[in-house]
C-alpha cells in the first residue's frame, strides 16, 4: 500500500510538471547511467566475463563471503519487481524489497548521502538495462551473521541515515567533490579503516585500510603516506587514465578506475581532487628510525638483481610503464600488505582508453624468500628520500600464506 501511494505521488508530481517527453526520459536515463558510473555498480555486480549487472563474484569480508546480487530488471532473479520507492529506500537505509536487510558490503552507508533526483535517475537507468535471468545466493555468511536481522543491531550502532550536507564555507567544487567521494563514489568503503564490527571509523576517514588481501592506501593529503606530493592534476590524471608520474593503478583500484573513475567527467574528477587534497593534516610526522646499514646493503643487493631493470637503479621508474618507487606513497603506507603482495604475486596495471598498455609486475614468490622480500622492501621504503618502517619476514610470510590458501 505504501509502495502504491508513493508511486501515485510520483505520478502526481509528473503530472504537475507536465508530461515527460521521450527526450526528457532519454536524458534521465543518460544521467542515471552516469550515476551508475559514479557508484561503480558494475564493479561489484558483474562477474568477470559475465553479463553486466547480473551478479558479481563473491566479496570476501572478514565475516564471510557475500555475493553481489543480480540487479538487472529480471522479475524472477533480479530487481524487476521492485518499485522505485523500494530502490530509494534500500539505497538510503539498507533495507531492500520486502524489508530484507542488506549487509553493508553494499555501501548504503555511503549511498544514503545521494540526493533523491540522482537516485531517481539511477533507477530510471537500471530499469533499462538488459534483464538477465541469473539466480544469486547472496548471503553465504556463517550463523549467526547469516541472519539478516542481525543487521538491525549493526545499523543501530554504526549507521546514520541522511543526505549529504554541503559545507557553505567551501566552494561548490569542493562540495561536489565531497558529495561524490562520500556518496556515490563510496571511496571510504575501501580506503577508510574499519572497526571490529566492520564499520567505517570516521575519525580516520580515507586514511587507508586493508581489504581482500590489499591495503587500500591513505588518500588524504598526508605528506608521507597520502597524496601530499600529488598535485590536483596528478590526481585527475590518475583517476582518468590509471597512470600518473607517481603511481599506476592495479588490484582493486584498477577495477575502480576501469569501470568508474576513467568514465567520470573531467569536472567531477577535478572536484574529487580538490576535496581529497583538502583532507588530513600536513603536519610532518617524525620519520621512523633508519634501518641498520647491513639490512640496507642486503636489500640493495636483492633490489639490483630483481627490480632495477624496470624500476631503475635510482627508483625513478619509467613513466607510464614502471612506477617510480622514490616518493611513491604506496611504498610508504603503514601496512606493507600491498607491497608484499605485489612482490610475491605480481600485479597487472589497469586498462583504460588513454592508457591501454597494462604493464605487469611479475610474480617473484618462487624466487625470493620471505626474508629477502622483507629486506628489499625495507631498502625501497628507506631509499631515495623514502622513510617508512622496516618490514619483517613474518609480515611477508603472512601475505604469502594468504596468497597460497
Amino acid at each position, binding site marked *: 500500500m505504501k509502495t502504491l501511494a508513493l508511486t501515485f505521488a510520483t505520478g502526481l508530481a509528473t503530472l504537475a510538471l507536465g508530461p515527460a517527453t521521450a527526450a526528457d526520459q532519454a536524458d534521465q536515463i543518460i544521467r542515471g547511467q552516469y550515476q551508475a558510473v559514479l557508484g561503480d555498480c558494475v564493479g561489484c555486480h558483474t562477474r568477470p566475463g559475465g553479463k553486466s549487472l547480473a551478479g558479481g563474484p563473491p566479496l570476501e569480508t572478514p565475516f564471510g563471503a557475500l555475493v553481489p546480487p543480480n540487479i538487472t530488471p529480471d522479475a524472477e532473479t533480479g530487481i524487476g519487481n521492485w518499485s522505485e520507492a523500494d530502490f530509494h529506500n534500500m539505497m538510503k537505509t539498507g533495507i531492500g524489497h520486502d524489508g530484507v536487510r542488506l549487509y553493508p558490503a553494499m555501501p548504503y552507508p555511503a549511498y544514503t548521502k545521494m540526493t533523491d533526483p540522482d537516485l531517481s535517475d539511477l533507477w530510471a537507468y537500471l530499469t533499462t538495462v538488459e534483464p538477465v535471468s541469473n539466480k544469486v545466493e547472496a548471503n553465504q555468511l556463517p550463523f549467526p551473521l547469516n541472519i539478516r536481522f542481525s543487521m538491525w543491531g549493526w545499523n543501530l550502532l554504526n549507521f546514520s541515515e541522511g543526505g549529504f550536507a554541503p559545507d557553505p564555507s567551501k566552494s561548490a567544487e569542493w562540495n561536489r567533490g565531497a558529495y561524490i567521494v562520500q556518496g556515490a563514489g563510496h571511496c571510504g568503503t575501501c580506503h577508510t579503516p574499519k572497526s571490529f564490527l566492520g564499520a567505517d571509523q570516521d575519525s580516520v576517514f580515507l586514511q587507508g585500510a586493508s581489504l581482500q588481501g590489499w591495503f587500500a592506501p591513505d588518500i588524504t593529503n598526508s605528506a608521507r603516506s597520502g597524496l601530499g606530493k600529488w598535485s590536483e592534476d596528478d590526481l585527475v590524471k590518475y583517476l582518468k587514465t590509471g597512470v600518473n608520474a607517481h603511481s599506476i593503478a592495479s588490484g582493486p583500484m584498477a577495477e575502480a578506475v576501469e569501470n568508474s573513475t576513467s568514465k567520470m567527467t573531467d569536472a567531477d574528477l577535478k572536484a574529487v581532487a580538490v576535496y581529497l587534497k583538502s583532507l588530513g593534516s600536513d603536519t610532518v610526522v617524525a620519520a621512523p628510525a633508519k634501518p641498520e646499514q647491513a639490512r640496507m646493503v642486503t636489500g640493495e643487493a636483492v633490489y639490483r638483481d*630483481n627490480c632495477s*631493470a*624496470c624500476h631503475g637503479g635510482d627508483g625513478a621508474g*619509467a*613513466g*607510464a*610503464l*614502471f612506477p617510480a618507487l622514490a616518493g611513491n606513497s604506496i611504498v610508504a603506507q603503514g601496512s606493507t600488505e600491498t607491497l608484499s603482495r605485489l612482490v610475491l604475486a*605480481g600485479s*597487472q596495471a589497469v*586498462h583504460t*582508453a*588513454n*592508457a*591501454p*598498455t*597494462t*604493464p*605487469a*609486475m*611479475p*610474480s*617473484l614468490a*618462487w*624466487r625470493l624468500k620471505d626474508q629477502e622480500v622483507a629486506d628489499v622492501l625495507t631498502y625501497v621504503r628507506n631509499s631515495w628520500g623514502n622513510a617508512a618502517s622496516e618490514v619483517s619476514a613474518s609480515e611477508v610470510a603472512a601475505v604469502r600464506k594468504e596468497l597460497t590458501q
Partner: protein
Amino acid sequence: MTRILPRKDVVIVGLGWTGAILANELTDQGLDVLAIERGPWRDTATDFNIGYMQDELRYSVRRDLFLQPVVETMTMRNDPSQTALPMRDFGSFLPGNGVGGAGVHWNGHTWRFWDSDFKIKSNLTNRYGAARIADLQVEDWGVTGAEMEPYYDQFEYLAGISGKAGNIKGQLQQGGNPFEDPRSRDYPNPPMDMTYAPTLFAETGRSMGLHPFPTPSANMSRAYTNPLGVTLGQCTFCGFCERFGCANYSKSSAQTTVLPVLMKKANFEVRTDSEVLHVDLHTGGKSARGVTYIDSSGEEFFQPADLVLLCAYGLHNVRLMMLSGIGRIYDPGSGEGTVGRNYCYQTNAGTQVFFDDKNFNPFIAAGALGQTIDDYNGDAFDHGPLDFVGGAGINCIPTNGRPIGTRPTVPGTPKWGSAWKKATVQGYKSTLSFSSQGSSYATRTNYLDLDPTYKDRFGRPLMRMTFDFPDNDIRMSNYLCDRMEEIAKKLGGKQYAVGRRKKGWDSVPYQSTHNTGGAIMGIDPKRSAVNTYLQSWDVPNLFVIGASAFPQNAGKNPTGTVGALAFRAADAIRNHYLRNPGAPLVQA
C-alpha cells in the same frame, strides 16, 4: 565427429605479427574476428618473467619458445634427384610457436626493401640483360617502393623503430642509409646508443669510403607510445633478444604493441592451443567456408567464416594451402603450379676479427643494436663487370654476450679441453664479429611441396623443402666475403677469419629464420599464388599474409616488409574487399 561452431566474419590462422595487425584493423572495421593459434597464450609478465627470462640454457639452447618438431616438422633435400628426409630437430631455422609467433623471439632488425627489390626482374633485365638472370626465377612483386612506403611507415610507427632516416622525401640525410628509398618522415625513435664494436666498425667503414649507419631496431632507444596508445620502455641492453621474449617491454612484438588493445575488444577472440588442420572450401573449390581445427584435447571443430586469413609462419601458410587444395602445387618439371614456387632463404657469411688490446664488453647488447653498410646490397652497386646479381647488407650487430653461446676462438684452437677454455676466456671480450646477410634469389628447383612418404601426428603429409644455395648466390656471397675481408684487414687486430658460404645447404647449424616464398605475390596468376593484396587468385575470400608472399628475398631481414604487407592487405580488405566481399580485387 566435428562440432560445428557459430559463424564468424573473419577467422585468422595464427596470432603473431600479421594476425595481430589484421585482427586489430578488421575489428576496428566492426567485424567479428576470431584468431586460432596453435601454440599457447603468452604475455610479458607471466611468460617472459624478468626473474627467469634470461635463462640461456632453457630458451637459447633448449629453445623453449620455438615450434617443436613433434608438433610439425618438414622433410628436406638439396635437389629434386634426392629423397627428402624429415628434420628430426629444427636447426638452420627456428619457426615460432604461440601467441606473438616468431615476433616474440626475434632480434628486431626492421628493414624496408627497395623499389629496385620490388621491380627486380624488370630492373635487372633492363640494366644487365635477360641472359644475366637466365638461371634464376626472379619475379617482380607487382608493387613499387612508393606504393609500399605508407605501409612501412605504419608498421615502423606501430613498432617504435629506432633508427636514422637516410632519405626523407628525396633529401639525403646525414648519418642515415644513403641507399634507401625516400621515406615520408624519420623513424619514430632516434638510433640506440652505440656500443664499442659497431662504433669501431662504422669508423673503419667510413675511413674506407663506405656508408655505415645505425641498424633500424625494434629495441627501444627510449620510452615510446605507439599510435594505438600502447607504451614500450627503453631497452636496458641486457642482450637477451633473439630466442627470448623481452621481459622489459622494450622489444616490439604483438604483445608489446597490439595485443593490449586487441584483447580488450568485444569483437575479438583468440583460441589458443588449437591447430587448424585445413581450410574448408565450398563445392567447386572457389571460396572458403571456414576452417577445421583441433584443440589440445583432440576434439575437432568446424569454424565457419566469411573471410579466412592465413597468418601463420610463411612455411606453414604454404603447407595449409597445399593441405586444403587451394591453388595448384608447383611442379619444377613443367614449371606449372604456383603453391610452393620460389622458396628462398638468406645467404649469409660471417667474419671475426681477433684483438689482443680491445675490450668490447659483448654482454652490453641488444638484438638490433649495431651498424650496417649497404654499399654492396641489392642494386646499390653496379653488377656490370660482376658475375652475379644481388648483394648483402654487412652488419656489425653484436646481439649478445651470453655465456654458453659466446665463445669466439681463433682458428686452430682445439674444440674442447683446457686450451679451448683458455682461448674462450681470451676471445670473449676482445673479438669483433660482423656478417653479410645476403639476398636469396629463386631458381626453378628450389621449392616446397608435400612429402610423398612422411606424415605428421594427424596423418597429414609433411611439407617437403627442396633447397640449395644457387650458384649466383654463392658467387654473390663470395664477393661480399672479399669485401668483408677488406674491412677486417682495415680493422687491424692480430687475426681474422671469414666463414664463406658453400654449396650444399645443411639444415643442422643455425643460419637464419628468414624462409620466404611459396605463396608469392604478383600480377600473373600463372606465376604467383596471391595477387598484390595477398588475396588468393584461386579462393578470393582467402588472404595469405607473411613472408610466404615474397617472390625472392633481399639482403635484409624480412619482418619490416611482412608488417608493411600486412597493413597493405588490411587496407585493401577494409577499403575495397568489403564493398564487394568474395570478389577478386584484381581480375586474373
